[in-house]
């Protein structure tokens, strides 16, 4: 998303700080490691052969999407139930949801690619795949609701409520495989069915993606803040015109 804010006169301040820069670098390094381990050092799987390497993106992105959506939920709750009604919480919720949708998208794509390899099909109506798709759509809807307009606080309240309802779909996706028609992988990681090096690569991936997530979140949240201030500046101009209207008629 481009932000008019960065170009606007009023807010020349960058969205980066020493901390976020450090974070960004760490994320880059982490991804570098992931490439090394995921693509070269980690062994092929007995069944999945090279295909297993998709796991190192697929699983972390899916889990980070979960995390992002849960953060959205928490931030929304914070906005609704804290006396301060601070819009910062709302922006964190929004930013996190955007990133979550991004990661969920990656999980869907990598997942279906993987599916092509190991199940011979891009898509099937397995419970997890379907519920994941619904989760994805739900948060697209959430983002759409954020764009409905109204004052910042209206936007915040409306979307916060949706977020609190939507977050309940996450456990639904997670446990769906237990409930019916599982084709998709059941608990694999938690049950330690992975050999050491695979496990390590996977965790590198998770760490790297987490760093990336936090980095994106901080920046995106600040950009949103700037967009809000830009809205306010736009309003000031409009106000001036409207008042001028009054002068004309007056004279």
């Amino acid at each position, binding site marked *: 998303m481009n932000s008019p804010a960065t170009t606007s006169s009023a807010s020349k301040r960058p969205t980066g700080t020493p901390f976020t820069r450090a974070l960004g670098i760490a994320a880059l390094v982490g991804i570098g490691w992931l490439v090394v381990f995921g693509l070269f050092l980690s062994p092929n799987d007995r069944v999945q052969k090279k295909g297993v390497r998709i796991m190192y993106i697929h699983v972390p992105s899916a889990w980070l999407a979960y995390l992002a959506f849960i953060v959205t939920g928490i931030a929304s709750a914070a906005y609704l139930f804290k006396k301060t009604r601070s819009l910062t919480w709302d922006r964190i919720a929004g930013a996190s949801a955007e990133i979550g949708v991004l990661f969920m998208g990656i999980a869907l794509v990598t997942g279906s690619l993987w599916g092509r390899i190991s199940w011979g099909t891009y898509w099937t109506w397995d419970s997890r795949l379907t519920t994941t798709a619904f989760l994805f759509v*739900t948060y697209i809807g959430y983002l759409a609701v954020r764009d*409905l307009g109204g004052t910042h606080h209206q936007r915040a309240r*409306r979307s916060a*409520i*949706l977020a609190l*309802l939507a977050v309940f779909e996450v456990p639904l996706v997670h446990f769906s495989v237990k409930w*019916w028609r599982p084709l998709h992988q059941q608990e694999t990681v938690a049950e330690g069915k992975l050999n050491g090096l695979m496990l390590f690569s996977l965790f590198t991936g998770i760490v790297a993606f987490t760093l990336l997530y936090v980095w994106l979140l901080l920046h995106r949240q600040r950009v949103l803040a700037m967009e809000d201030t830009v809205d306010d500046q736009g309003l000031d101009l409009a106000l001036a015109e409207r008042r001028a209207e009054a002068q004309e008629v007056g004279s």
Partner: protein
Amino acid sequence: MSSWRIARLVAAKDLRIELRSRVVTNQVLPFAALVMVMFAFALDNDNVLTRVAPGLVWLATLFSLLVLVQRAFAVETADGALDALQVAGVRAGGIFLGKSMALAAQLAVLELVLLGAAVVLYKAEVPANGVILLIATYVAATTGLAFVGTLYGGLAAGAKGRETLLPLLMLPVVAPVLIGATRATEAALGTNGASPSEGWPWIGLLTLFAALFGAGGTLAFGSLIDE
């Protein structure tokens, strides 16, 4: 005045409107019925129908729900009555409960018709030992759907362009209901050799769902409908 009295007022009002305009009776019911027939047409494949009957019943219910919800809020927005309701100080929680009740009532009728249609068209049988489960499913699912419908219908009813959101917001959220209700019904009807006992966990899911949206709506409806 208490939310509960408001709820009764609003529900009575909505049902009276239906009584006078007969939109649901003349439009939605035939629509739902025709949907079933259409399914029968499109899928007139030997044994397929009976196998997927439960799924189709709930699918048809969902589509009809969309129509019902749109109607339920068209009445309010046609002449700015929703504004009037808000100004009238009518507690949003009350409006929510009231409209949900009316919606649930209409849904219940609808589902009966659909079940009937399913039995006739798809030759679905209802075994004695599945009856209680079936009833439980209907009650739980209907309540849940009514709540969700009202919640998102209200959100979508507001300012311009929002109506475009209704299906987008609603369908993914009601998907669990579709799943749960379908499985429970299959269990009740013993489709694909399922046994009633398998149904009850799904009822749990449905009830949880209904409770969640009932609570959410009653508390939050105000902020959702005000523009």
